[in-house]
């Protein structure tokens, strides 16, 4: 009953007028960026980071969190109506778009909205039980264990976001190296600054994020020259009772899967959706219809998506290690506000933690009103042509970069990272792992050096400590599996004759 008491305490904080307003702003902005191309949650959160300097801590975190999970809702709307996923709703395109083709857009949108609501609610229950429990476990972690955990995070994120361990790992390492630029905390030595004074504090997080996600993304969209045809069909929102009954079991299954997968390192919305969809295809009563526009195909993945987006806060808030790129940015937001996320946070700042948890449910209510009854009005956003949109996004990137330090030099750094980000995109390197590497890099170094100091320079402590030993063994197994898979794949390709598949490494995606 402790949890109930704590949640009541959280709602006390979340339901103040001020925090309600921040939550509403976050959800609205989140839905908007989910709908629009070229500005994912990562870029938006980094644009708004400077804004949070001037607003209270609780409100700032509530707003940024709202952007993240709000974007998942908006994303599924654009996936269902136009088959355009921006951030994560790849799975929603399958059955959701099929339903649109059948003229059941309203039903698909309603299903996605309600399932997301169910997913979010289940995830909040999981969050309020598990985060404090995991926080207790985190006290057992030593420096070596933290190192191993971060490496597991790198491996998982690399594999999940890019489909290729090698490419993703490369980006993580580049991120770690970029995080080394600046003054070394232990010796006070300037590293990789090329004698430029503005680099002695390190490269700005916002510059990297906006360069790699904002500028590079805009240019990619401009290169693609895709003309979007806005959705103009009729929307009939209210389902019949038998249709409604079909939503519930899938949504509940999706919520549980999503909540669980969200906690794991590297987890998060994308993998949760695929898992929920696959399981629904196996166990659902209507499994034959899935793939051809079934309610279950939308409900399960939408619930999993939303649930995973929220439970991915658990590792950040209880252990202090973000498990994906967006959480890494959230961690930066916590630190800007002078709060170190980790096992001490729940005890030290209960108002922030429980306020944030409660605000997620309040945000859920906002989002379902924004996305179900008002969805028609949102769809008019698509009528804005990209030629109007991209100068505006560029403007927000400029203002966002400038206002971090009120310094125009930062805009040049953003431009440099825009170019680098564009090169990354063209070389099939996904910048999301880079973000995680960049934020975890200094922490990884700190813990690595501390672990070696404690063991007097011996690496055996990484293997003999039970937690880090297990985690490293997991990484080892994973790498072996990847090598074997690659070798089998090349052999198969050779056998299958002259024309091998493009990008023969395991699970590589065309983009």
């Amino acid at each position: 009953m402790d949890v109930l008491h704590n949640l009541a305490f959280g709602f006390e904080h979340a339901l103040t007028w001020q925090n309600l307003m921040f939550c509403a702003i976050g959800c609205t902005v989140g839905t908007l960026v989910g709908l629009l191309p070229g500005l994912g949650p990562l870029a938006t959160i980094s644009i708004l980071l400077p804004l949070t300097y001037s607003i209270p801590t609780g409100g700032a975190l509530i707003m940024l969190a709202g952007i993240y999970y709000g974007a998942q809702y908006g994303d599924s709307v654009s996936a269902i109506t136009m088959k355009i996923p921006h951030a994560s709703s790849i799975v929603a395109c399958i059955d959701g778009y099929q339903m649109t083709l059948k003229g059941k857009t309203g039903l698909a949108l309603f299903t996605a909205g309600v399932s997301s609501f169910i997913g979010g609610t289940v995830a909040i229950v999981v969050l309020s039980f598990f985060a404090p429990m995991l926080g207790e476990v985190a006290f057992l972690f030593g420096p070596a264990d933290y190192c191993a955990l971060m490496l597991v995070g790198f491996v998982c994120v690399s594999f999940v976001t890019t489909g290729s361990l090698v490419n993703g790992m490369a980006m993580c390492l580049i991120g770690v190296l970029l995080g080394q630029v600046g003054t070394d905390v232990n010796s006070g030595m300037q590293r990789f600054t090329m004698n430029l004074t503005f680099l002695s504090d390190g490269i700005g997080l916002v510059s990297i994020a906006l360069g790699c996600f904002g500028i590079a993304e805009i240019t990619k969209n401009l290169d693609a020259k895709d003309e979007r045809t806005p959705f103009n069909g009729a929307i009939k929102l209210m389902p019949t009772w038998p249709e409604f009954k079909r939503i519930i079991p899938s949504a509940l299954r999706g919520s549980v899967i999503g909540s669980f997968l969200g906690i794991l390192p590297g987890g998060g919305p994308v993998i949760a959706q695929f898992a929920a969809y696959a399981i629904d295809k196996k166990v659902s009563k209507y499994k034959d219809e899935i793939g051809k526009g079934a309610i279950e195909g939308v409900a399960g993945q939408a619930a999993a998506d939303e649930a995973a987006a929220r439970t991915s806060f658990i590792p950040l808030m209880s252990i202090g290690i973000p498990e994906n790129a967006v959480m890494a940015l959230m961690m930066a937001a916590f630190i800007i506000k002078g709060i170190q996320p980790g096992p001490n946070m729940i005890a030290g700042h209960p108002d922030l933690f429980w306020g944030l948890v409660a605000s997620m449910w309040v945000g859920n209510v906002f989002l379902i009103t924004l996305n179900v009854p008002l969805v028609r009005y949102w769809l008019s956003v698509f009528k804005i042509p990209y030629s109007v949109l991209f100068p505006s996004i560029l403007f927000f990137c400029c203002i966002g970069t400038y206002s971090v330090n009120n310094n125009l030099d930062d805009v040049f750094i953003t431009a440099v990272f825009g170019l680098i980000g564009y090169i990354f995109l063209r070389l099939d390197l996904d910048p999301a792992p880079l973000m995680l590497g960049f934020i975890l890099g200094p922490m990884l170094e700190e813990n690595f050096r501390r672990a070696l100091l404690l063991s007097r320079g011996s690496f055996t402590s990484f293997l003999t400590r039970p937690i880090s030993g297990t985690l490293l063994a997991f990484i080892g197994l994973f790498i072996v599996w990847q090598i074997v898979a690659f070798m089998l794949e090349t052999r198969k390709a050779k056998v299958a004759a002259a024309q091998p598949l493009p990008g023969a490494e395991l699970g590589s995606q065309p983009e």
Partner: protein
Amino acid sequence: MVESAPQLTASESSILSSSNLPPIHSEFTMNDRNLLRGLFLLAISLAFGLTSLRYPIGQFSRAGPGLFPLMVSCLLLLIAVITILRSRFVEHLPLGFNIKNISIILASLCGFALISEFVNMIAGIVFMVFCASFAGTASYSVVRNLKIAAGLVAVALAFQKLLGFNLPLY
């Protein structure tokens, strides 16, 4: 790194942008995304790795500032070598590098920063909108650009007056 990476790719891209040919299936073509990725990673790892040798390395028990970056660079070097080796076994994919759009966008960003510094930010915003529009897909329209610029200046004013941003607008 910030210096070395664009240098490398500028030379690479000049080779690449000139060749808009369909994918070539010969054994040694430079226009191979997988190979170029490996070379790019190699350049980054060498840039960081060689620089970190200049810092005190220390011992494992008492690590100097150069040790950790050196280790990370070595790992990256390993990945770069793997990528280069692997590019020999998979099909060559051409690199779709469109230098026009990225140049326009970067020019409008730098122009914005320079003009904001020496004139004021309103002029910077107007320049950015007009310059960036060259990259657009739709036909170039002065009226539309004026409308966008006016809207963005209004937003910037709102940021300055209502949210207390410190923007040198005029």
